Structure formats: structure tokens, C-alpha cells
């Protein structure tokens, strides 16, 4: 079957006009990104799957409310991330585990923690990109949901702070603070990834031998 060349907005409009396949095609087009957002926000495949289904059924039913003042993908992401957060708040399926310094303002961004000598002496040999990605995802799952969602949207998915703020329905400054605090906690959790020789945390880029 030839790929559907209609734009996202055209597919959504076709769906509203009664095309029974248009919405599924729209979702198919963005499924991996939407799944990443749901999965990383919720932290559990089953819950992510349920949250994504709830979100997209909701989007399907209220597609006519889309006013076109943002991109269709922004609208879809907003619905998905809010469904994921709602689900987490309601069911608390994966309660996050506070870090020791949680809430006291200390240790956030503490360079001595990042320089922890548990760091791998040669992360290139010890960890593949896949393992590193999994470890980061696990650390991400330990963050409070709101911080996690902000980091997923801004840092991982690359949305601007303003766009993320619209999706999360909060001020941009709140998104910034959530990102900042979340990154600081991640830095603590992932301190062992720091390469003591370079005094710099190992990156996926490093691990791939400088590819990308």
C-alpha cells in the first residue's frame, strides 16, 4: 500500500469528516514518539500502553475540538502526556523513590556527587549504548512524575520549554524548574557513569564511539 501523503492536519481533518482510516494513519506516523513519551513518563509498559490507548481514544473522540493553533503532534503529545500523568496520579503504580537529598535543596547539582569514584574506569568497554539507555530510563523512572514529564518533553523529545508548558498546562518557569531539579537528581543517580579521567559523565555519543 502506498504511504499516505496527507499532512497531519489533513489526516485529522479527514478523520473529523468521517474517514475511518485517517486517525489510525496519523497515530501510526507518530507511534514511536508517542510511545516513548508514554513509556518514559509512566515507566511501565503495561501502564504506558493503557495510558496511550486512553489518550488516543480521547483524542479520536474530540478531534473536532482541535483548533489548529498548534501542530497536530503537539496536540497529540499534550493528550498523551496528560493521560500518562493522570494515570500515575490515580493509580500510583510506580511510586517514585525519593533520593536522600530530596527536598532539602542540598546535593542538587553537587559536583562532588557527579565525580563519585564509583564511576566506571572505562565506560566504553563496560556498557553498550543500549545498556546506558536502559540505565538512564531506570533513573528517569525514579523521578517524581511532574519532573519526569518535563524532562521527557524538553530534554528527550526536544520540545521547547514554551511548548512543554502548553502541554503540561503550567507556566514555562515551572517547566524549567522541573527540568532543572530533575536533571540534578538524575545526575546524582547516574553519578557512577562519570568517567573520572575526563571528569565528564559518559554520553551515548561517547559510547557509540563518536558516531552521530
Amino acid at each position, binding site marked *: *500500500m502506498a504511504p499516505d501523503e496527507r499532512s497531519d492536519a489533513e489526516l485529522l481533518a479527514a478523520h473529523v469528516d468521517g474517514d*475511518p482510516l485517517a486517525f489510525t494513519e496519523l497515530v501510526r506516523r507518530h507511534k*514511536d514518539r508517542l*510511545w*516513548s513519551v508514554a513509556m518514559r513518563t509512566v515507566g511501565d509498559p503495561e501502564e504506558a500502553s493503557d495510558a*496511550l490507548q486512553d489518550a*488516543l*481514544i480521547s483524542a479520536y473522540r474530540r478531534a473536532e475540538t482541535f483548533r489548529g493553533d498548534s501542530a497536530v503532534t503537539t496536540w497529540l503529545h499534550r493528550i498523551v502526556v496528560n493521560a500518562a500523568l493522570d494515570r500515575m496520579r490515580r493509580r500510583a503504580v510506580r511510586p517514585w523513590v525519593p533520593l536522600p537529598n530530596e527536598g532539602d535543596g542540598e546535593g542538587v547539582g553537587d559536583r562532588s556527587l557527579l565525580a563519585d569514584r564509583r564511576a566506571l574506569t572505562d565506560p566504553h568497554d563496560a556498557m553498550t549504548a543500549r545498556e546506558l539507555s536502559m540505565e538512564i530510563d531506570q533513573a528517569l523512572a525514579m523521578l517524581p512524575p511532574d519532573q519526569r514529564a518535563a524532562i521527557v518533553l524538553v530534554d528527550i523529545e526536544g520540545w521547547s520549554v514554551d511548548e512543554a508548558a502548553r502541554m503540561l498546562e503550567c507556566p514555562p518557569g515551572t517547566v524549567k*524548574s522541573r527540568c532543572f531539579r530533575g536533571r540534578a537528581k538524575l545526575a546524582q543517580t547516574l553519578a557512577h557513569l562519570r568517567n573520572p579521567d575526563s571528569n565528564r*559523565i559518559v554520553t551515548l555519543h561517547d559510547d557509540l564511539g563518536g558516531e552521530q
Partner: protein
Amino acid sequence: MNDNEEYDVEETPESVEMAELLRNLPDVAMPEAVWNRLATALSAEAAPTVAAITAAPSARRRRWLPGAAVAGVAIVATAVILPTMINTGANVADGPKETSAAVSLEPVTLDLVPARHVVATGTDYDEVGLPNQVGGLLNRVGMDSPAKMIAAANPEPPTPIAKSGSAPDMTTDITALHDCLVALAGDHNLPPALVVDRATFKGGPAAVVVFLHTFDKSEQGPPDTVDVVVINPPCTEQDRKDAMRMTFEVSRVTQ
């Protein structure tokens, strides 16, 4: 410090470094099972407006017969006694947009065939769009509600089978169709078919056969269901073994 408090954040080297690390994380590919479940749920949403098919509660753990890689789709809906005469596919209601051009229907022969309708819609079926596509097919043959499916149990004069330029098989030849459906019914303990669609499945030749499965007019009864079977048109013994079968719930909303 309150997370919801708006304030200017002074970026630290660690924060910037962590942001860079996160930025390089790859997307997580959606597992095939999740996509199938999601697409089925979306298709079920569309169903009440176009036809009578919605995903059954078991859709999340869909049942497939072994050898699901068959190059054809057969949809079977069974319930009450179904007619054994073939009906025309020409006087059909408007269905959803097909993915390829519909094939014109030409009379070939008249005979007793254990199927209510035999059509050639030209649809290219696939697992994901199947509920929607089946809904469209039933709409097309005028069976857009359980009541009309039940009504199809009443015998009507036989009507032509669709003609095709391809080699004779169950979608083009009355005898082959008869033998295949009888064998299918025997293999799976199914009643005669409601609809047979000569079509394609993921681009390969296929027959889509619909059997009405469970119908109970009482409100407390089990959900009405249809079985969907995908079969390669030659309908050999091996084809029947390899046939793909799905079960869907027929929405009461359309009654």
C-alpha cells in the same frame, strides 16, 4: 522550593551535561503487540459509525490460529441458520473508503453456494485495519446491523458470483467456493458464511469470509460475535490449516 513555583533557573554545568545526555536518548520503538492493540481499539471506535464490528474484549490478547502468515483474509459471522444461496453484491450500501479500487461484479453462474454474498471489493486487508475493513465490507453488502445479519438468514434467490480473470479458485468458481466453505465450516465447526470478499491481504491474493458466530437477542446474553478467517484462495488443505482467524464483537449500538 515548590516544583510548581515559577522562577528563573540558573543552569549549572551538570544540568547542561545531563540535558545533553538525555537529548541523545533514542526513541523507544512501540512494540508490535502494543500497536496492534491500539489500532484495534481505534478501529473499534470507528466501527459504530460504519458497521457493526467492534473489537471483542479479548482483543488485547488476540487469538490467532497457527500459521497466521496466510496471504488472505476470511471473515466469518455465524449465529442463526444462514441461507445457502448466494446473493448479489451489487446493490450494496456505501461503505468506508476502500484502499484500492473496487472490482466490478459480473454474473458468472447461478448455483447454491453456502454464502450470503460474494463480492470483490478490491480491498487490501491487513491485521491492523481488519475490524474497520470488515465493518466496511458488511456495510457494503447492507449488513450494517446485527438485525440485518439475522435477516440474512432468510433464504433469497441465488445471485451471481464475482467474475475474475485469474485462475479459478474459491473467489471465482462456484464449485471451488462451495467446496472451500463447506471444508472451512467442517474444519472450524462454522455455519455457512455471510460474506466472501475476493480481495488481497497485505498485497497478496486472499479471500475474506465472514461468519456470524454468536447472536443472542436478550439483553443479558453474551455479546454478539463474528469470527474472521483469512485464507489463501486456492483453499487447499494446507491453506485451511494456515488460515488466520479473529473474533470480534458485534456492537449492539448499531441495532
